């Protein structure tokens, strides 16, 4: 145990409890709890590996993921650990470089969904009544269709590019976020501090964003990590369906779509390794989300 030294500022009167340092201490305590969870460590190590691959890309891959062509369809061997694909490109290099797109698109989409969902959740949860009913119906409608299907429709209608993929996933995730935040806001609104702010004569915007919002950051962080995990899942599926990232990008979902037909012919390596990559990233994201959730809620 290390002893916390409170910051100098605001320490003029020692008997006044410094709220800021207390908050900081609580945060440090939560981080310590988080680091003690094996699932968080495992998840972070896997995620870190993919982040390194995404950042350095072709600088650290053994071959160039797009433009090095060797003998096609080689089984995994000493020169090509994961084999080569039909065009003779190194599967290991492509799997490593494939982390980049998904690690940019998924968090961006999740953050966008969290922002819109939080605003909608605050509004519906605080005001209730007619606004809540109307937005609630829309949420219900979007939730009754599988997200992948709706995304497919949008891509058919407006064509496909990275901004479209990000925007579509953000729109599709907004209802779920709204629902979660709304529930948290309703619970908070019943507490005394909200009532006292109202009696003080504060406006609705102030109460929502300055009083309630800071108190639901835990919920928001949990929701963000969960949504990132789902976004990885959705980006991969969309790419697999040809509605996400486009060739010749070394994306994993795309690689599976291109190569799963060869499994019957015995060429399993161009499909299996990207599949394992997707699985490892989604599981890592979920492990992190899960441990953050249990630390925040405890």
């Amino acid at each position, binding site marked *: 145990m290390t002893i916390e030294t409170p910051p100098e500022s605001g320490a003029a009167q020692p008997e006044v409890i410094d709220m800021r340092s207390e908050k900081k201490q609580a945060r440090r305590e939560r981080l310590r709890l988080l680091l003690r969870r094996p699932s968080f460590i495992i998840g972070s190590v896997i995620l870190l590996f993919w982040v390194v691959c995404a950042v350095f890309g072709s600088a650290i891959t053994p071959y160039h993921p797009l433009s090095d062509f060797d003998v096609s369809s080689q089984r995994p061997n000493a020169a090509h650990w994961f084999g080569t694909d039909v065009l003779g490109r190194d599967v290991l290099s492509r799997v490593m470089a494939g982390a980049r797109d998904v690690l940019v698109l998924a968090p961006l989409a999740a953050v966008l969904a969290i922002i819109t969902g939080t605003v909608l959740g605050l509004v519906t949860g605080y005001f209730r009544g007619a606004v809540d009913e109307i937005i609630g119906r829309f949420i*219900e409608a979007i939730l009754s269709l599988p997200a992948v*299907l709706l995304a497919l429709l949008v891509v058919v209608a407006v064509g496909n590019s990275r901004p479209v993929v990000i925007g579509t996933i953000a729109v599709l995730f907004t209802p779920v976020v709204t629902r979660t935040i709304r529930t948290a806001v309703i619970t908070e609104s019943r507490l005394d501090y909200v009532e006292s702010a109202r009696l003080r004569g504060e406006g609705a915007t102030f109460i929502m964003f300055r009083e309630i919002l800071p108190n639901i950051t835990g919920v928001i962080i949990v929701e963000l990590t969960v949504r990132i995990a789902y976004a990885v899942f959705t980006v991969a599926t969309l790419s697999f369906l040809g509605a996400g990232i486009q060739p010749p990008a070394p994306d994993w979902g795309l690689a599976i779509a291109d190569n799963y037909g060869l499994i019957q012919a015995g060429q399993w390596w161009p*499909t299996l390794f990207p*599949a394992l990559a997707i699985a490892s990233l989604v599981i890592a994201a979920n492990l992190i989300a899960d441990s953050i959730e249990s630390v925040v809620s405890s």
Partner: protein
Amino acid sequence: MGRFIARRLGLAVITLILIITAVFFILNVLPGDPARRIAGPFAQQEQVDIIAARIGSNDPLATQYWRVLKNTATFDFGTSFTFNKPVREILFPDLWRSAKLVILALILTIPISIAAGIYAARRKDTFADRAVVTMGLASASIPEFVSAAVLQYLIGVELGWLPALALAPSGSSFLVELEHLLLPGIALAVVYFGYIARITRNGAIKAFASDYTRTAYMKGLAPRQVVRRHVLRNALQETVTVIGVAVGYLFGGLVALEIVFNYPGLGRRIFVAAGDKDYPILTAGVILIALVYMVFTLLADLTVSWMNPRSRQGAGT
């Protein structure tokens, strides 16, 4: 009970109208001329006009919107662009094939996942519990086409235990058909094991910790009886809801899985129609899936309200 059903049905109709509006908005109002998309970027303008006249995409939006609403009410979505056959004749056989897959997956997954959830809840915080939770998390978080591709390779090709493609030759017996469906069924079962086991575990933990369970034990009921009469009935309410939602999603969420196993179900049909810009099939397919989803969530709600009469109050909010 009657009022409860009426209210739920009313809400379902509103939701359906909103879904139709959303689908219509995405396909017809967002930028991009449908006729131009069908004809392709290099087609002559005259050709585009002919297509526009045939599909009515130059009509006022209100007319087009009314047409989609009317089509849904009668479930007659006109003729498919690519097959020149009524959409209905194409979609219903697909729906039936998807249904067979869904039913098989549910038969495989429900008993195992509920048993695993209850088992884990009884041994909360032990190694067995953690194993079930971790397995559930992993299985639910992997996209189904990933586990499908891996299973197809392992069981279908490397071990050769089951056919790697899902569609049996036409005219095969029930057993042959079942054999072909088993592998995709297992792939789906793996995905839903995670969801159902997790929800069941949470429900069961709550039920085991409750006063009525303690009372049941204290009045001398055998543990088996306690689980069957008191815990299950209360623990499974959330599970029933999740299964209802899952069934709805299964029909349309199957797109990627049906593609991997080359199975001509509803999901693959919609995917192909998206590539062909076959708007009637797309519209009808998506609305059909929404309908299936709503029927099953409604059934789940009714089951829950039958299991727990208290939930009827304040329903639907």
